[in-house]
């Protein structure tokens, strides 16, 4: 029986993830140094894990409010106010979700009518474009470029805008490029959004991992809180990827709309993850800073190595990704990544897995130990040298 005929057309037409294809190749190989794992290499700090164990021992196994534990929402409000300069009412402007992934999904499902256009900068996280498609929206990509260190510029937004654009998706600092925007650039984006009456969905999951300068949240600018849904979570800053816990903050009417979707699909986020998240916000700052310091040193090392090897790489101001260009090798990004994997057993994800502006680039995640980074650098150098030798 051919069951594929039951699959919805828009799902059939959804392209396979470039990451998944690459993952399946890497999974079959042994002794690979993977620079392709987009999550912290640290385990969640013990005190956060212990808070979840304690909650379990105390019998905390039941549903919570759809919006999430009020203690967590209060802690989120205090944290966001202190670190981002935005105040949200715990009662009705904050929604605890199953990761930022769920927050993004329900935001689109709550806001996108069939045919609505959603702008997003790329290269970008693999989920944004498919999420827009799954809600029958129209994805409007906005290119970012190496010459701007992959910052999103107002010029690019103006050039990409079309009538019918309703939402603007931001992810700053960005996965995979590490690009982010300074205050002037954020203000220009805000001005554009106001002029075009766009609602902003701002995924700031890497914001704590900003190594130089300030992270400016667009919702903190005058007049922007009412047209921004601020998404954040615990996966990257507190090494809580597997806990699946995040949050959305925004105007009460929008949070209520998202809550409608959330309550029917998820009910609530895991109570254990919520309890752990409270501990992270109350006492996790030092651990987070320690991890960030280590990412910072690793970034400096790996970016320097890429440039020494001849793979031009900008210095990412945030996230734990470097995005070197492989142009000097004369190879395409897929060919380079597969060749590197085959010859030297180092995995980097081809940039086109993240959008067409990833052409010619590979993503290297430096959330791994120094010994791995040092060895990976040596292997990549050997591979690039071998390519030069072959081409003579």
């Amino acid at each position, binding site marked *: 029986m051919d069951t594929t005929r039951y699959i919805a057309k828009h799902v059939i037409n959804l392209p396979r993830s470039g990451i998944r294809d690459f993952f399946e190749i890497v999974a079959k190989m042994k002794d690979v140094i993977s620079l392709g794992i987009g999550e912290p290499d*640290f385990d969640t700090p013990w005190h956060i894990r212990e808070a979840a164990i304690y909650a379990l021992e105390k019998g905390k196994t039941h549903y919570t409010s759809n919006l999430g534990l009020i203690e967590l929402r209060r802690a989120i409000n205090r944290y966001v106010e202190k670190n981002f300069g935005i105040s949200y009412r715990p009662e009705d402007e904050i929604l605890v979700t199953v990761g930022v992934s769920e927050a993004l999904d329900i935001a689109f499902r709550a806001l996108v009518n069939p045919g609505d256009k959603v702008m997003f900068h790329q290269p970008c996280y693999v*989920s944004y474009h498919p999420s827009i498609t799954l809600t029958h929206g129209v994805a409007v990509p906005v290119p970012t470029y190496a010459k701007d260190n992959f910052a999103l510029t107002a010029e690019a937004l103006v050039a990409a805008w079309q009538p019918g654009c309703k939402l603007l998706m931001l992810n700053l600092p960005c996965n995979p490029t590490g690009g982010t925007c300074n205050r002037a650039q954020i203000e220009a984006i805000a001005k554009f959004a106001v002029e075009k009456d766009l609602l902003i969905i701002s995924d700031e999951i890497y914001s704590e991992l900003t190594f130089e300068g300030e992270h400016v949240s667009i919702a903190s600018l005058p007049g922007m809180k009412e047209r921004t849904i601020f998404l954040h979570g615990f996966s990257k800053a507190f090494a809580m990827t597997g806990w699946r816990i995040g949050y959305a903050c925004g105007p009460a009417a929008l949070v209520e709309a998202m809550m409608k979707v959330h309550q029917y699909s998820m009910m609530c986020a895991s109570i254990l993850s919520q309890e752990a998240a409270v501990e992270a916000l109350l006492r996790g700052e030092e*651990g987070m800073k320690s991890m960030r310091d280590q990412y910072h040193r690793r970034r400096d090392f790996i970016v320097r190595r890429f440039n020494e090897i001849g793979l031009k790489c900008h210095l990412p101001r945030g996230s734990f990704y470097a995005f070197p260009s492989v142009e000097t090798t004369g190879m395409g990004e897929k060919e380079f990544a597969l060749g590197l994997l085959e010859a030297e057993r180092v995995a980097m994800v081809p940039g086109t897995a993240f959008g067409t502006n990833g052409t010619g680039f590979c993503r290297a995640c430096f959330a791994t130990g120094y*010994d791995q980074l040092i060895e990976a650098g040596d292997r990549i150098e050997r591979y690039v040298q071998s390519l030069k030798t072959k081409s003579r």
Partner: protein
Amino acid sequence: MAFLLFFAKLRDVMSPIIKLLLEGGSLTTAQMGQVLNLPEAEVNRQIDQLKKDHILLGWRPVLNLADEETGVVRAVIEVRITPERGGGFNRLADRISRFDEVESCYLMSGGYDLLVFVSGTSLQRVAAFVSEKLSTIEGVLSTATHFLLRSYKEQGFLLDVQAEENSRLKVAP
């Protein structure tokens, strides 16, 4: 990473070399140089300076001495001593610290003065050290010896932890 949490307030003033050492990656000085973009000679020079400044006291491996066959008996001794005019507790603490049996010695607040960690090849040897060497020092008022029965964590390393296979996916978005 746990040790770095203890030094949280010092993190901003710690040299990058100390931070790397505390991160516990067991890097060689050549590798440290690669990470910090310094010549190896400069890394060695900075390490020597840290030693001269008595910030870096030395290196010692952290061993699991839980096995009976190692023949190591350890004890923690609470020592009450008489403070001395002009020297406080320092002279006596220094004298006690110099014994080879003493691993660590700390001045403490509370119901006793010094907390002394000792080790020996048998219970009798440790007991003899306390009764013949430690208690007999002029100025030592009393000792309370507690023998270590089992160690769960040594200097930041958990014992009795099965090495887990790395469960991270090899590629993730």
